[in-house]
């Protein structure tokens, strides 16, 4: 049922009342007509109540009406606007951190030659003087790409139980489990930072943003390569009995 239908029913009810009142305007109502008027009155009250309830129901479908925004009666002056803007900008920029270390500036070291006056003399190859590759990827180490640094335990089965021969009626009674070794991968955070000046960013001679991003990524690879090699050497040296072979001598016994 809808409000429109309820209103139609009320209109029908009204027409009946009007008809009844018209027919009895010059005489007293009979008992039956009095009862009919009472019934139409009750029907009208019922429909009125129903209409208010369905109005509430249909208000869900009408959506939220936007609040009315009234402009200030008195507009702020230009001076007020400027003061408010300066105050907002000041609180936005003043973080308490000052760049007092070594930013990348094109008119000073380390790229002092790339002054704004001579941008067209610069060739992009100058930003490709460094290079490196990921040692781990080249070596094919087992990689665990992850989105967190929670400890990850890797288990290696490093030994099997020895078997012996048994005569009839005999069998091993003691359990000999395999040997396992576990390593736990965590995660140290490697980070680097470069600050570049707005002037260097606007210089067209050097794609400074791409250069900085590339250098940051390369710096990560270089540092992680060094850390990997250092940790790797320590690990193999810790078990040099099994891993080290001296030059020209095969002092290590070949297992098996």
């Amino acid at each position: 049922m809808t409000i429109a239908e309820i209103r139609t029913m009320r209109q029908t009810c009204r027409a009946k009342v009007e008809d009844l009142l018209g027919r009895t305007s010059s005489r007293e109502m009979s008992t039956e007509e009095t009862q009919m008027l009472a019934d139409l009155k009750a029907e009208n009250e019922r429909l009125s109540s129903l209409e208010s309830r369905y109005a509430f129901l249909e208000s869900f479908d009408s959506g939220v009406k936007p609040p009315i925004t009234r402009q200030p009666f008195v507009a702020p002056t230009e001076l007020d606007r400027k003061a408010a803007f300066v105050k907002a900008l000041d609180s936005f920029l003043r973080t308490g951190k000052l760049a007092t270390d070594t930013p990348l500036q094109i008119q000073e070291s380390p790229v002092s030659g790339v002054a704004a006056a001579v941008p067209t003399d610069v060739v992009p190859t100058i930003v490709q003087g460094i290079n490196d590759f990921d040692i781990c990827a080249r070596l094919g180490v087992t990689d665990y790409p992850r989105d967190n640094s929670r400890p990850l335990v890797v288990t290696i089965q490093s030994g099997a139980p020895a078997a012996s021969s048994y005569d009839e009626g005999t069998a091993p009674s003691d359990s000999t489990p395999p040997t396992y070794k576990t390593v736990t991968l965590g995660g140290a955070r490697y980070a680097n930072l470069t600050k570049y000046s707005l002037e260097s960013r606007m210089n067209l001679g050097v794609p400074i943003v791409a250069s900085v991003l590339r250098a940051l990524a390369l710096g990560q690879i270089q540092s992680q390569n060094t850390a990997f090699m250092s940790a790797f050497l320590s690990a193999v040296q810790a078990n040099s009995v099994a891993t080290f072979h001296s030059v020209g001598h095969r002092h290590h016994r070949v297992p098996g």
Partner: protein
Amino acid sequence: MLALKYGLPFFWQTSPNLKFLLSPTDLEAVKNTRSTQNVPLFNEADDTILGKPYVVHPDATRVFYGDFSVGCFRSRTPLFIQTFLELYAQAGLIGVASYQWADWKFYAGDTSAPNNYSPIVYTNLEGSGT
């Protein structure tokens, strides 16, 4: 180099992932070396050392050989880039930082196991130290 190749525990010797890892200096030394059978250790035709591929990097302070997929494990997150547009704005600078979590662990044999087999072996071509 021969001691490395054949000193590796025998069941690792059939691994398809065997590689050498050495520095440019050590590679130069290997290229100028022949075995007692007068066979060059380095094969120019297929770019291998004793028939095995190699990786060269200056950070390699020794010569390593073996199956690195068994001996080395790495955990690494993506490289995150963070741009500081406002932090250094007073000085007219924009900061860009990168960060990444990484860790490595290794399996170089197990001294507690009945057979202390390592999938990776190494040597020091300079002849001093380990």
